[in-house]
């Protein structure tokens, strides 16, 4: 296979867990709450999906359980931030470390156990299209679900009443209060759904992509997702593109090495992060102006509840 096809196909597969998490973070931040615990939701999602997959032999049951676990962790964040007025930064990071500790502890028995993962399912006809078929349609079913999820999240956020509530909670919470809505409930729901999506991202990593559980296996992908949301200016479509771009940046190193290119591997490892810095530099001011207005209150600790 050519280098480009190899890298892009690898980028789509490797970027999917990041895309799930970043979609979730988009929903959360659109409601005015930053969740730095995405990495934690991915971890609990990855372990729960793996454990349920091992016990039941059904990867779909695992993915569902992973989503629930990710949602539960995010719900705790929502409760602390929205109802108790806790610092968003402190709460998110604390929950990440809690998740890291808990998953290391409870995950130990699942290390090395084989899971019935999703496996590859080539989409009939579509997978035969040259290049495009290889890049998009020779993957696992959970990855195809993510194709549908991007327009779904976009539709809900921008075309439904629920989405309007979420976006208003993130832009101008006061006006929701004036109209008699409960901002806190809206935010709690958005953050919890965000955590569920991150949990699905973790499930993709452990039961569809890498087919293994290991402590701390998310290794920073949750933080890449948080950065990605900014660089995608809170748009689900751009999140999709950005996640695949990150995936490609990660896949580029191994693909070049496997072809024997004499490029320094440590330099290659830095590519995804250099990419982030470049995009942040280029988009700098634009990201600030299009950020949900309530996010700018993060440093006043509690989001405004009117």
């Amino acid at each position, binding site marked *: 296979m050519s280098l480009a096809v190899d890298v892009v196909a690898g980028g789509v597969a490797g970027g999917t867990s990041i895309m799930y998490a970043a979609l979730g973070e988009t929903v959360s931040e659109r409601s005015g709450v930053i969740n730095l615990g995405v990495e934690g939701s991915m971890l609990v999602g990855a372990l729960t999906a793996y454990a349920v997959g091992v016990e039941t032999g059904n990867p779909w049951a695992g993915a569902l359980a992973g989503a629930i676990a990710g949602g539960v962790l995010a719900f705790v964040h929502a409760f602390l931030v929205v109802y108790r007025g806790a610092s968003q930064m402190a709460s998110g990071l604390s929950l990440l470390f809690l998740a890291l500790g808990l998953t*290391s*502890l409870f995950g130990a028995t699942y290390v090395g156990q084989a899971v019935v993962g999703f496996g590859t399912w080539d989409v009939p006809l579509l997978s035969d299209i040259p290049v495009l078929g290889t890049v998009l349609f020779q993957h696992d079913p959970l990855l195809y679900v993510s194709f549908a999820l991007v327009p779904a999240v976009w539709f809900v956020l921008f075309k439904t009443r629920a989405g309007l509530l979420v976006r208003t909670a993130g832009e101008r919470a006061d006006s929701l209060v004036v109209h008699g809505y409960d901002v806190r409930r809206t935010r709690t729901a958005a953050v919890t759904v965000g955590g569920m999506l991150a949990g699905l991202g973790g499930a993709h990593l452990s039961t569809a992509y890498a087919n293994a559980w290991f402590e*701390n296996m998310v290794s920073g992908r949750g933080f890449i997702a948080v950065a990605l949301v900014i660089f995608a200016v809170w748009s689900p479509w751009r999140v999709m593109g950005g996640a695949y771009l990150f995936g490609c940046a990660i896949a580029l*190193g191994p693909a070049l090495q496997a072809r024997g290119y004499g490029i320094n591997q440590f330099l290659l490892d830095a590519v995804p992060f250099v990419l982030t810095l470049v995009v942040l530099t280029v988009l700098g001011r634009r990201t600030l102006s299009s950020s949900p207005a309530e996010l700018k209150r993060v440093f006043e600790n509690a989001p405004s509840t009117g």
Partner: protein
Amino acid sequence: MSIRHSTGRTVVATFALALALAGCSSATESSDSTDSSGSSAPGKDTAAVGFIMVGPKDDYGYNQAVYEGSEVIKKEFPDLDVLTAENVPEDDTAATTMEQMIDKGAKLIFATSYGHLDAALKVAEEHPDVVVVQQGNTITTDIPKNAGTYFGTVYEPMYLAGIAAGASTKSDKLGYVYAFPIPQTIANINAFERGAQSVNPKAETITVSTSSWCDPGKQQAAAESLLSQGVDVLTQHQDCTATVIQAAEKAGAMTVGYHADASSLAPKGWLTGAVWDWGPLYTDIVKTVVAGDFIGSKFNDNYRVGYKTGTNPFVLAKYGPDVTADTQAKIDEAQTFLGTDKGSPFVGPVKDQSGAVKIPDGTVPSYADNDAMDFFVEGVVGKLAQ
């Protein structure tokens, strides 16, 4: 990212240590403080032995092998308290963890990760009555009286596994997923390639680094990139091994394992692997230290044990269905050869990737020479980061 990573591990490590120590503190406290046996024989009559591990004790890999070794010590020396701490990061936390073990009566500590060496030497300097031995790294300065390093020669079984890979490959392309270009890994890759070449001169080994001892996501990307290049035998030097093995099996490729017998994960493609058996070596070290004979012993050095010098803690895993009787006979023959004075995977001439002769014709390098290997041999594809 690395800071966050270590901090997370610290939390876990401290927690695990607390659990481990809570379980056995009552037994030791009465015996160790009064009868100090003097500084002349560090570690003599220790009441406890400590093991620190960089990862979880059940990773089906490096750390599990250490833990199983520590279980052997528990059985062989029922009077000793065996303290274990998992997930101890390769920074000052390691020193703190060792100090806590010393407080619990341990005068012999096994620091079992490559990156634990600095902390091990620091603790050894501060506690002249405690022996600290480190697994896998090399002390490059003067060796203190109460410290040493030890390791097996994993590249010997990897050479044998290379024979199995070279004989079984159809594309003549072997793939190697590794973490970092440390000498131990370089020697493994070179030995694997030379083993393959010994039965299949066309075999080449393509290398991909993940820059991580265990990042299953990166391993998957590495495995996919190798498989798409036509590689049909995958092997690795990673702490967690399940992802690469399953990626190979899914693609219908063969696999050579590392650390643990993972044939259950790859019933079709499993060839063999280099797996661990630390018990006998740990037992030797504990015996030497408890008897007060550590200073000047072979363990008070950069000790390497291989087929030539004794019981190599690395052994070859059982064979999978694709390894023919003919190949098995060749492997047996090679193992006998490695055990002789003239045996080595690196008997000269050994050329590097540019074709320059690095080990002259007929020269048999020592274990110490191989531990300092810093070049890929001819037939290995990939660039070493300098």
